[in-house]
């Protein structure tokens, strides 16, 4: 492993794609935000707290967070069939779990906070962009939260760990095979969600988490700046 590992798009190993974020992109929603990692663009819209519908899903003891992740049919080169799929159902669940530890909706009895995430354009790390956008949108909707959540995908190109994989790197077949590890954290570095797709050793996983911590600080600043911008 050489020190100057060259990534296909010329980035440094710990360099994120250029990020952009904007709050208040959906005027109809109670809170909304856009977050982009390079070509990956996610828009999140938050509605509620409102009464949970269908009624049998109501929890009279506490509020519920309901996330829906959806990739738009034109978000990738091969048109994807619109509507829920195995993958989008899974990511919806995962997004909910990543955000659940920070939202304080325990006293919103029988209510639901709906988070709709749409991927306008995809170039890997869509769930991470979605979580970043959703965290900002929740804050914008005035939902009490312990902290924001930031998310980034760490990849492994053969033996080299890299931050914020794109589609080309995600499918890196050489060496040890494609590996990608989406990690979500609160602002103080507590992990709320970690996934592993591929193979990685124990020591290297620790290293990956460390890399993610550094990347999260940069993402957090982008989210913070976008939220402060809308209040001006």
């Amino acid at each position, binding site marked *: 492993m050489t020190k100057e590992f060259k990534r296909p798009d010329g980035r440094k190993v710990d360099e994120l794609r250029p990020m952009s974020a904007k709050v*208040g992109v959906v005027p109809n929603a*109670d*809170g909304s935000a856009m977050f982009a990692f390079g070509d990956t663009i996610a828009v999140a819209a938050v509605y*509620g*707290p*409102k*009464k949970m519908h269908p009624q049998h899903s109501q929890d*009279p003891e506490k509020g519920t967070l309901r996330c829906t992740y959806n990739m738009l049919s034109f978000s990738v080169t091969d048109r994807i069939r619109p509507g829920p799929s195995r993958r989008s159902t899974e990511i919806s669940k995962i997004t909910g779990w990543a955000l659940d530890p*920070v939202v*304080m909706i325990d006293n*919103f*009895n*029988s*209510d639901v906070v709906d988070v709709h995430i749409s991927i306008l354009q995809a170039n890997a790390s869509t769930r991470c962009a979605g979580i970043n956008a959703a965290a900002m949108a929740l*804050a*914008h*909707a*005035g*939902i*009490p*939260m*312990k*902290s*924001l959540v930031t998310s980034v995908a760490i990849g492994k190109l053969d033996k080299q760990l890299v931050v914020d994989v794109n589609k080309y790197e995600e499918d890196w077949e050489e060496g040890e095979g494609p590996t990608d590890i989406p990690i979500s954290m*609160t*602002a*103080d570095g507590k992990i709320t969600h970690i996934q592993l797709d591929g193979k990685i050793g124990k020591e290297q996983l620790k290293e990956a988490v460390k890399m993610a911590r550094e990347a999260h600080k940069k993402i957090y600043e982008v*989210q*913070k700046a976008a*939220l*402060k911008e*809308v*209040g*001006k």
Partner: protein
Amino acid sequence: MTEREIVIPGEVVAKGNYLPGEGTEKRGDEIVAIKFGLSEENNKLIKVIPLSGVYQPRRGNIVIGKVENLTFNGWLIDIGTSGNGFLPVAEVPRYVNKNDLAEVMDFGDMVVAQIAEVNKRGVDLTIRSRGLGRLDEGMIIQINPNKVPRVIGKEGSMISLIKDETKCRITVGQNGLIWIEGDKIEDELFAKKAILYVTERSLVSGLTEELKTWFKEQGK
């Protein structure tokens, strides 16, 4: 900490000897914001005023709502919260024939009410005060509930200016609905224009003065 500042959830607002108010939480000796909004300090009490989001009902708030349903002992009123507001017959300060609730208020009627209690089941309303009850005339406009404090102004300075200039009777509901009644429709529309002017510039400081000059320009 004296300046008003925009804070985000999880951000430390102040350190040391402060008290956590609404929208904040104490962690160790730090006061941390749990909502997105403007932080404000008053007598060592720190609170965060939300800038966006849905209306959160609170006891004592004056709200405007629409009659959604009649039950055997009261009215269900939509006040824009997740649960409907309930106005019991007993909270109406006059005789009500229990067999004909529609005589007092029917479906679709608009009503000004005060929140008597917010509990786990929902919001209880009352109209046992002056200026509350069914609205028969005038018009209703809707604004962002987070901008209601700006429309009212410090100790009602903004709203009384609008009332004086437009000669309209105005009731501002904390849930963002505003009732305007004037002698002429032009007056009502003028008041509406003034209120929308205020909501569009809700983050400008010294807005009452700015509105005064705006009224002068409009009067020409």
